[in-house]
């Protein structure tokens, strides 16, 4: 497939996704408001009973599923596009220097290989070009943000920086380093370790860091549930869009691991998706998880995070909505948006 056709097709799919995000979601929400005015549902299941069989909702759901499917797998999908360019892409990776450490013997957790996350065929570690596929795909994950999608990571970093500059940082589930980059940029004096299960993502991350000439970051292939770092060696353990990819038991294990790695008073902060308790928001979010091959979105949303964190010995536990851009309404957005939230706590 030629470059121009690929771009035209992906642009078209993104435009269709924007229409879905604003108009179709907007119409669905209006329909819900209208129906809920008579009898307000208290549970997502009641919202499903109210909307699930309507033609509008069926198209809403179909489009959410299939626009993503086309994005990755259609004739002009990300997967075939990058496969055709495999050799050139891999040859274009910059020499990572000492920034990359892979572990070919690493065992990945069962939940990780069970589904092709985001409808990415093979998932983010299924083939050597998977990092490139994921990187390209991530540019249109938040459809209304466009090129500003990178800013949201900087906003998260800025929130954490407001309480002083950490000097030893761990980014768990760093992917191709989109979440890690603002940390090594914002804290040049800090030492940043970034870990992920996916070798193809890490290779791309280290290549980007080499091009950035970053001297304070290292990407390592490691399971966030069981790292090889010493106790109490970090003052910030963070993740972005990691915990919703894990089942509750593994989330708890990753929190326990973070607790072990933190120095006393150190902070753990995860940027992730947590819908409000309002039933329409939950219904929409649970459906999103199902349709996007993210089966643990819902269990995370139903977890008692405060209870779990308190049980592990964390204090100053806070769960706050997060605005991914200026002017977004985190409570009642007219357009579909991810229910971004920051889960933060300190080691006592």
């Amino acid at each position, binding site marked *: 497939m030629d470059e121009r*056709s690929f771009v035209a097709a992906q642009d078209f*799919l993104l435009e269709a996704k924007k229409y879905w995000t604003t108009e179709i979601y907007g119409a669905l929400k209006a329909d819900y408001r209208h129906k809920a005015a008579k009898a307000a549902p208290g549970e997502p299941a009641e919202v499903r009973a109210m909307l699930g069989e309507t033609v509008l909702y069926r198209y809403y759901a*179909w489009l959410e599923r*299939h626009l993503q499917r086309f994005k990755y797998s*259609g004739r002009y999908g990300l997967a075939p596009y990058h496969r055709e360019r495999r050799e050139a892409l891999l040859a274009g990776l910059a020499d990572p220097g000492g920034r990359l450490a892979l572990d070919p013997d690493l065992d990945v957790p069962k939940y990780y290989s069970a589904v092709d996350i985001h409808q990415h065929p093979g998932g983010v570690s299924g083939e050597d070009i998977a990092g490139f596929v994921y990187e390209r795909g991530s540019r249109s994950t938040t459809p209304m943000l466009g090129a500003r999608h990178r800013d949201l990571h900087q906003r998260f970093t800025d929130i954490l920086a407001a309480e002083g500059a950490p000097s030893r940082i761990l980014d768990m589930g760093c992917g191709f380093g989109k979440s890690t980059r603002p940390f090594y940029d914002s804290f040049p004096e800090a030492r940043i370790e970034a870990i992920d299960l996916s070798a193809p993502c890490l290779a791309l991350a280290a290549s980007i860091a080499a091009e950035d000439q970053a001297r304070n970051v290292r990407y390592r292939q490691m399971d966030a549930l069981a790292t090889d770092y010493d106790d109490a060696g970090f003052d910030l353990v963070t993740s972005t869009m990691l915990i919703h990819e894990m089942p509750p038991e593994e989330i708890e294990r990753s929190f326990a691991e973070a607790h072990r790695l933190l120095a006393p008073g150190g902070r753990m902060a995860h940027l992730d998706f947590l819908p409000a308790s309002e039933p329409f928001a939950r219904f929409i979010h649970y459906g999103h998880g199902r349709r996007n091959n993210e089966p643990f979105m819902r269990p995370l949303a139903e977890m008692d995070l405060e209870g779990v964190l308190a049980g592990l010995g964390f204090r100053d536990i806070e769960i706050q909505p997060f605005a991914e851009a200026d002017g977004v309404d985190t409570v009642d957005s007219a357009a579909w948006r991810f229910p971004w939230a920051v889960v933060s706590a300190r080691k006592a």
Partner: protein
Amino acid sequence: MARSEQTFFEDEALDRAFGVVMALATEVQVLRDRLGALEARLAAAGLVEAGELAAAPGDEERAAGEADRRAFAAALLEPLLGRQSSKSVG
């Protein structure tokens, strides 16, 4: 065996047919984009004037395209008649 795709409509045929529509719509946009680029390059090279292709075609040009239009419309809509093109049993 490939696993079955998720379904959203009461009749799964609609799920699949709408997929065909979206694939075609994507292809149409790819073509529109290519055509626009071609027109822009032709205009830049002075082979067509800007806006020339957007102007209404003359009678002669319309007549020249008629057979093609008729064939396209027929091919597109013929399936709606539900008629056999070849003999089958049952």
